[in-house]
Each structure stands twice: as C-alpha cells, then as structure tokens.
C-alpha cells in the first residue's frame, strides 16, 4: 500500500515520456470492451423509468419477491457473520494439520456452479438425501421452504464473507495484539477492542459482498428451495417467471437488482478509498 504514490508517479512520468499518440492507441484499444459493458448499462438506465413506474413495482410478484429477498438475504448475512467469523479467525491465526484442505473446502462454493451447489444440497439435506429422513423425523423440512432459500444462499454466499474476514484478520498485526495483552488486556478485551476494530474493513466488505451475492442467488435456490411466490421465489427467480407472464415486472426487478449492485460496488470502493486515505495519512 505504501508503494502506491511512487507507482502512480512512475506511471505519470512514463505516460509523458511516451507522448500522446501511444496513449490514444491505448484508449482506442480499450474502447470495444468499454462499449460492451457500457452500452447494456446505458440501455438499462434509459429503460429504468419504465421499470420503476408505480404499476410494475406494485405487482404482487414484485412486492413478494422483494420482501422475501430482503428477509432471506439478511438472515443469510447474519448467519454468515455468526458462523463464519470463528472459522475465518481460526484460518487467519492458527496452523493445524489439514488447513489447506479446510481453506479449499470453504472457498469451493465460490467456483462451483450454483446449480451444482443446489444438487449437492439436495443430495445432503433433501427429502431423499443423506440427512433428509432424519430431519423429517424431527419435523424439519428444508426443501421448498424459506429456510431452504437461506441454506442455498448461505452455501453460495458465506464463502465470500469468510474470505474477506480472513483477510481482515490477517491485516491486524500480532504485535499490536501482544502489546495490548502486555498492558493487561484480557484475551476477550484484545479481541473486542483491538482485533475486531482493526479487522473491521475486511469483515464489513466481506459481509456486504456476501449480502449482494445472496440477493443475486439463483441456481442453488431454484433447485433446492423451488420457486413459489411469497415463499421461496426471490427476485432472481421472479425475473424468470415474469419473463413468461409480465415483462414489465421482469424489467422492474432487473432495474432494482442492477441499481442495488451498483450501489454496493460504489459504496465499497468509497469505503476502501477512505481506508487507504487514512492509512496514508
């Protein structure tokens, strides 16, 4: 991080030395990719008004999907924080046999196609899955329920939090923690007053990414929890249904999800820039 200013300076110098024809060429070569990503977003901005008009937003399909998506994704984020933080701390602070395996296991859902994740969840927690009969015997059914939606989201999204939290814990210097302990802080005191505040940017950005990923979850949810309005039909699933029945509702949901994602990205970049600024001062 401390290298940043000198790197920027080098870059600026280089650009001046090489002169502008070369940088024009570079801009020109970058343009096709920019158009590819920029044009669809521009289209969405122009059609946003249509999608966000009152009647489309009031469609029951849209309202139910929004409420359910908020409820399930926040539950997922809370559970990820609750269950993921100890594991992230463990991975950042301890070495133990099989640690590499644990790290791989925890990050695997990031690269597994979500639909495949849904199959795996069905094989494990489905009615005919490994744990299904036992769960059913105690009266717990997960497939086709909102709890099933949360499980699917947790499986796909929690790894994003665990990864961010682990990196957050890694940035906290052990010397600081030891100094606090020498000054008489209890282990919990060190964790609460030193480690967690310093790791907070990592924890928080991980949590936001986890939340955003949970909101967008489709494949695992569809396979494991099914698609029922008001019960398991989150916004991405509602888009699929609406494409066949009510295009305006599909557009409204698309606009909402795209704007939400943009807000998350801009917010996170702002947070990270602020952090970097504080660091450089």
């Amino acid at each position, binding site marked *: 991080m401390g290298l940043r200013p000198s790197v920027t300076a080098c870059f600026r110098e280089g650009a001046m030395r090489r002169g502008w024809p070369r940088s024009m060429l570079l801009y020109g070569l970058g343009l096709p990719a920019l158009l590819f990503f920029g044009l669809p977003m521009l289209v969405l901005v122009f059609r946003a008004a249509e999608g966000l008009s009152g009647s489309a937003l009031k469609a029951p399909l849209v309202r139910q999907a929004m409420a359910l998506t908020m409820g399930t994704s926040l539950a997922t984020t809370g559970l990820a924080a609750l269950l993921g933080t100890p594991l992230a701390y463990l991975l950042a602070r301890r070495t133990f046999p099989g640690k590499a395996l644990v790290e791989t296991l925890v990050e695997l859902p990031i690269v597994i196609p979500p639909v495949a994740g849904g199959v795996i969840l*069905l094989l494990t927690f*489905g*009615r*005919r899955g490994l744990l299904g009969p036992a769960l059913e015997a105690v009266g717990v059914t997960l*497939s*086709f329920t909102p709890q099933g939606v949360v499980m699917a989201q947790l499986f796909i999204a929690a790894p994003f939090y665990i990864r961010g939290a682990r990196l957050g814990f890694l940035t906290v210097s052990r010397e600081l923690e030891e100094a606090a302990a020498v000054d008489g802080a209890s282990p919990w005191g060190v964790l609460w007053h030193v480690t967690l505040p310093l790791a907070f940017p990592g924890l928080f950005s991980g949590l936001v990414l986890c939340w955003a990923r949970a909101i967008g979850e489709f494949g695992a949810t569809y396979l494991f*929890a*099914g*698609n*029922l*309005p008001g*019960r*398991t*039909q989150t916004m991405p699933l509602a888009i*699929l*249904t609406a*494409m*066949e*029945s009510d295009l305006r509702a599909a557009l409204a949901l698309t606009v909402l999800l795209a704007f939400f994602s943009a807000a998350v990205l801009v917010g996170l970049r702002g947070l990270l820039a602020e952090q970097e600024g504080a660091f450089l001062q």
Partner: protein
Amino acid sequence: MRRGIWVSLWLMAGCLSPLRSPAAGPVEVWVFAAASLREPFQELAQRFEAQHPGVRVRLNLGASSALRTQLMQGAQADLFASADEKNMEEIVRAGLVAEGPYIFATNRPVLIVPADNPARISQLADLARPGVRIALPGPEVPIGAYARTILQRASQDPAYGPDFAERVLRNVVSEEANVKAAFARVALGEADAAFVYRTDVGPADREKVRVVEIPEAFNVVARYPIALLKGARHPTAARAFMALVRSPEGQGILQRWGFGPP
C-alpha cells in the same frame, strides 16, 4: 477436448466478426418444441436426418411459454410446436407464423406420485389433504393451465367442494419451469405429486413413479399445434420436417410414445 478448443476458437472469431456473411455450413432446422415432446421429436429428428442427408434437426425443448417468450424476443427458429393453443395463438398474433398452425397430436394429463407414495395419494381428491407437497408449473405453462382447469371443474362437483381448487393450490410447494421439471421433483421424491402428461411416464419411469388417473369428467384434452415461422432460415427443410410430423409415419412414432391423433 480438442473439439472444445476448436469450438471456442471458432466462437471467438464469430463474436469478433459479426458482419461476416452467413455461414454456408450444413443445413440446420431449429425446432422449438414443448418439453413433453422430447422423446418422439428426438426419434422424428433421427428419422428425418436419415431420410435427408446433410440436414440436421436441432431441438430446443422447454415450457411452451418459455419458448414463446424466446421467439417473441427474437430467437431464431424454423418451427414451433406448442403443448397448448394459447401460447401458439400469441405467436400467431405477434405475426411470427408463416404457415399453420396445424394440430398434430393430442395428450391427456395424469397425476404421478413417487413409487413409494409417501403421501398415500390414490385419487384426485387426495391432493387437497393438508401437508401434501405438489410440484406444479405456473398458469402460463400449458400443464399448469390444464391442471388449473381440471381443479376448477372438480370444484363444481359437490363431492369435492367449491374450495377444492383453492385447497389444492395451497399445497403447491414449487412453481416449476416446465412439465419435465415437475416430473423430476416427484421422481426424486422431493414432491408428493405432480400433474404431467400420460406420455411423460415412459416404461423406464415405472419404478420411480406411479400414475394416478384423473376422473374422465374433469380431464382435458391437450392439443399440440405446430407452425412454420417467418424467421425460418431453411423453410423448405422445415416444411419437410413438419410434413413428416403430420404424415402417417410421424403419427405412428407419436402414437408409439402415447400421443393421441389430432
């Protein structure tokens, strides 16, 4: 693997040169067909390809409503075969049809339950029992619309009660994308019952699912129309495939898979 690499290079070149002239490759007839037509249309495609060397039949199978949406969004196809007349009518109304539609087959909805029948369903009336888990596509999908018609008809019968349809629909645990997806939910044992077509239950499925008949008085006849689309790239070959589907030979194949005559 090596084929995959060639395909990826070809696609990269294709994406980067959208202005090239249409490829003079093999003639491909794209058929958008209702999911319930999977097996007979696969056989018909094989038969057609054997009779017309150099022509390939490509099937895009899905809910008729999903295919209709794809076509209205500009998907390129030669033929559309729907499991109901409603989705075909919308395609006609959108001005996408060049010839047809012709009804070429009929089908009957049935109920299926997992082979071990965990919810102990032996008749239509059992679907209203609380706690039964039903997989059913939405009303825009043909089987979803047919099922709702059947339930409405049963609700007219005092033996079932006026709120019968409502009580059954309350037991729906998932609105599946199409009839084959609903079938899979029951075959996997995740759902207790589903409405499918008689033709969906093949000989190989008998060990996974059991059929429960729907009372004749309430049941409907599903009518399958096929049409040649205006956007067809190969109208002559497409017309020939449509002719095969409607010929005695094609009808024989459809009926061997359990479909009724038009």
